[in-house]
Each structure stands twice: as structure tokens, then as C-alpha cells.
């Protein structure tokens, strides 16, 4: 039937043959090549311009000496890398605690029985406070303050109390993310669970949480990336992690190149992590459509 129609169509166009698949593909390849060429040329010229113009600034040599000093970079980088292990360690023990405590806070904010009102109030006030105060201030207050209360030796360590400060701060953010996830689960899912006779807690445990936690994974990945960077703030109360080590080198050599090294180390971790979070997010968006 369709064959019939096709031959029945009068060849009215000037281009009787149309554009064959091959012709079309070749044209496309040509177009793409041209684009690539334009892109390459314009990119190279922009970078060349930067490369040539910046060093012409009057203070460039000084800046180069202070910020892009290869000699100092070489000398300090291995130690910096080593100091980064401490960042990783702090991150490694803080992150699970944040996940757990954040979830507990989210559930507390969702508590419905009137007898649990203090719990709900507590969680609300808690989240307000710890999201409202800069992390660095929380670290100062808790990291310096609590040990100042006269705790005996191993228990007054800034590692402990700095991590506690991080956990307290970040769990507030994570709790809000969980809560958003819990609230984003369509009302009908709760209704369906309820109509089957499932209890409030069973509904939470089997229906809402598994979906909510998965849905907010990208948002929590972003929180993790922020955490990885904010671990550096612990340096202000003593622990010699990456940022502090860079600061020590900076003080010692009176040169900022170690900070550049620190920035590179951070980038090496955060860029792949961010990419991963973005791809998670993109995949999720796609699925939802």
C-alpha cells in the first residue's frame, strides 16, 4: 500500500533524488569538521592571548615568584599530599556519622505524635542553628570551647571536637536534604501504603525512605563534596591537614605557591566527584521524564 503511494507521487521537486543518506551524512561530517576547526582555532587564540598578555603585567614576576614558584612547589608538594591523608581520614569518619545523625534528625522533624513534640522542636531548632551559623564559627566554638571545659587528655583532642563540629553542622544540611526527599515522595505512595494497612513506621521504612534516600543521592553527593572542602577549616583549631600544612609552608617560605598546590589537590578530588554527582543528577532527571 505504501509502496503504491510512493510511486504514485509526482516528482514535483527540482531535486528529484532528494538527499540520500550518504550525502546527508557526508554533509554532516563536513559541517562537524568545520565546527571543530572554528572551535579549535578560537580556543587556541584565546589561550594564546592570555599566555602572552598576562606576563606583560608590571608585577608579573613578583606574582610568579610568590604564587607559581616551581622550586617551592616541588619541595612542598609531597608533604602536602601527605597532609591530605588527614583530610581524608577526617572525612572518612565524619561522613557516615553525618549520614546517620542527619537521618535521625530528619525523622525527628517528621515525628507526628504529640508526645514527640519536644523531639520535633529540638530537630527544628537544631537545624536552624547549625545551618545559620558559619561552619568556621561552629568549629571555633566547639573545637576550642568544649575542650576548654576541662576534659581530660585524650578527650580534648581538636581532632575529636573539630570532627564533632563538622558532624553537627553538616548533619543539619543533610537532614534538610533528607526531609526534602521524604516530602518529595508523592502523597499517593503514602496513601497506597496506608490503604494496605501498613503502619506509619513500616510505611516510612519500606516505602518512603528507600525512595527518598535514593532520590536525594545527588544532593547529598554535593553535601559530601562541600564537606571534603570544609574539612580544611579544621586547620583553624590546630590539626595539621592540607590547608594548615600549606599555611605553615606559606609562613615558612613567605610564599603562596603551597596554597596553589593545595588547590590542585582539592581539584583532583572534587572535580571527579562533582562530575559524578552531576551525572547522577542528569540520569535521575532523565528517568523522571
Amino acid at each position, binding site marked *: 500500500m505504501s509502496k503504491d503511494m510512493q510511486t504514485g507521487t509526482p516528482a514535483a521537486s527540482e531535486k528529484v533524488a532528494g538527499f540520500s543518506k550518504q550525502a546527508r551524512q557526508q554533509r554532516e561530517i563536513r559541517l562537524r569538521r568545520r565546527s571543530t576547526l572554528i572551535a579549535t582555532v578560537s580556543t587556541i587564540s584565546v589561550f594564546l592571548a592570555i599566555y602572552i598578555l598576562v606576563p606583560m603585567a608590571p608585577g608579573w614576576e613578583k606574582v610568579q615568584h610568590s604564587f607559581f614558584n616551581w622550586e617551592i612547589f616541588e619541595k612542598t608538594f609531597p608533604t602536602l599530599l601527605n597532609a591530605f591523608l588527614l583530610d581524608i581520614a577526617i572525612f572518612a569518619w565524619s561522613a557516615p556519622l553525618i549520614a546517620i545523625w542527619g537521618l535521625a534528625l530528619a525523622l525527628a522533624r517528621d515525628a507526628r505524635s504529640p508526645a514527640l513534640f519536644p523531639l520535633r522542636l529540638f530537630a527544628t531548632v537544631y537545624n536552624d542553628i547549625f545551618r545559620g551559623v558559619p561552619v568556621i564559627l561552629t568549629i571555633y566554638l566547639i573545637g576550642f570551647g568544649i575542650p576548654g571545659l576541662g576534659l581530660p587528655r585524650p578527650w580534648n583532642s581538636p581532632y575529636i571536637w573539630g570532627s564533632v563540629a563538622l558532624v553537627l553542622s553538616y548533619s543539619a544540611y543533610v537532614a534538610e536534604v533528607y526531609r526534602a526527599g521524604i516530602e518529595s515522595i508523592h502523597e499517593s505512595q503514602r*496513601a497506597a501504603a496506608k490503604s494496605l*494497612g501498613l503502619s506509619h513506621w513500616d510505611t516510612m521504612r519500606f516505602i518512603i525512605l528507600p525512595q527518598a534516600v535514593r532520590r536525594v543521592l545527588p544532593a547529598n553527593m554535593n553535601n559530601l563534596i562541600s564537606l571534603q572542602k570544609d574539612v580544611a577549616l579544621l586547620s583553624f583549631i590546630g590539626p595539621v591537614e592540607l590547608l594548615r600544612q600549606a599555611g605553615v609552608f606559606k609562613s615558612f617560605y613567605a610564599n603562596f605557591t603551597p596554597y596553589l598546590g593545595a588547590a590542585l589537590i582539592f581539584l583532583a578530588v572534587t572535580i571527579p566527584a562533582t562530575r559524578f554527582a552531576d551525572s547522577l543528577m542528569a540520569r535521575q532527571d532523565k528517568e523522571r521524564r
Partner: protein
Amino acid sequence: MTYKLQLIDVTKSFGTLEVCKGISFDVKKGELVCMIGSSGSGKSTLLRCINLLEAVDGGRILLDGHDITDPDLDPQPIRRRIGIVFQSFNLFPHMNVMENVMLAPRRVHRTPKAELLAETTALFERFGLADRMTHYPDQLSGGQQQRVAIIRALAMKPEIMLFDEVTSALDPELVGEVLDVLRKLKSEGMTIILATHEMGFAREAADKICFLDQGIIVESGPPEQLFTNPKQARTREFLSRVM
């Protein structure tokens, strides 16, 4: 006592919006009652009230003669006796359909696993989905999903089933398979209340039609009478628009 379910002057408001303005009707055991009416007339709200997902403001709902709107009653055991299937978002997307069906009996009835598995498999077979038991909801067509939702409700062994426009979100081709399941349930003696826009099905399968408009039952009766000879002007007008 032959009535399975009776609604007596049920009222329900959301804030200042009166959605049900005194609704009364009754359903005998094994009957299929269709509620029709335009969007926003209160059909879904009424079904949610019967399932106790919403608390009524006034009036009574009697299940086997017992008032189930008593606020002191624990709603959970009552809900188990009444199955409901919604228009969409029915299934739990993170579980395969077998887990969807088995969750509630396992947690609520504490049915032993082996017994439950046998029962569930039997149900899936009965509704022609035995080969899909380990699929996830989004691997199924809309019609299959709705059939699983029905199976899930049946697994709790309810005495009444409520259906809220279960075919509205489906492609026209998939409507038939779900309606077939409803026919089968009716033939097996299930008591059914159904809100629907499928006038053809309502006419063919229902024992009684209730036409709702703006929160009241304007007219009700057997389908032949209501469709061929509606008494109220509002009913006539509505039918002319949708048929």
C-alpha cells in the same frame, strides 16, 4: 442485613470548600456501583473517605452495619478490609511487583513466607501476569501496572474493592485489559465501587450508577434507566457532553 456498605449523609470539606455535601447510598454484597460525574465533583474524595484515608466531617459510613467513622476506632484493621486502586502512582517503584504484592501481607497479616509465595503466584497466574513477577513497575505497561495494583489490593483479601478512575491515565489500547479484570472480579462475587469516565463499561457492567455533581448525588439508578432516560436536567447535560 443485606447491605455491605452504607453511606449516610456523609459530608466533607477542605477548608471552606465543601466537597461532599451530604452523600448517601448503599452497596449490597457482590454489587458493582459506578460513580460518574465531572472532574471535581467529589468522586475521589468519597472513595478516600470510605477507605478512611480522609476523615469525614459528618454523617456515617457503615461496613457490615458497623460505623467505621468513629474517631476512636483504629483505622488500620478497617482499611485492610477495603482495597483501593488509584488512577496513578499506585505501585512502589523501588520494589519488583512480587515484592509490591507481598509486602503488606507479610508485615500486616504476618503470613508465613512459603504460604504467601504460593498465594501470590496463584494471584499473578489468575490475572495472566505470572511471567512478570520479577519485573519492576517501570518495566511494565500502564495496563499491566494497574493489574498488579489490583492484585496487590486483592492479596490483602479485602471484602470491598474501590477503584478510582483506574483507566484514565492509560493509553486507549490498554484500557480493555484492566476492564477485563474488573469484569472477572465482579463475576467472582467481589463487591466493587468504581469511579469512572468509561461510560460504555459503566453501562454494561454496573448494577447501579450514581451521578455526582458538586458534592451531591443528583441521580442514581440502574444503568439502563439512567443512561436512556435520565430524570434530571443536570444528568442529561453531563451525558450529552461525554457520550
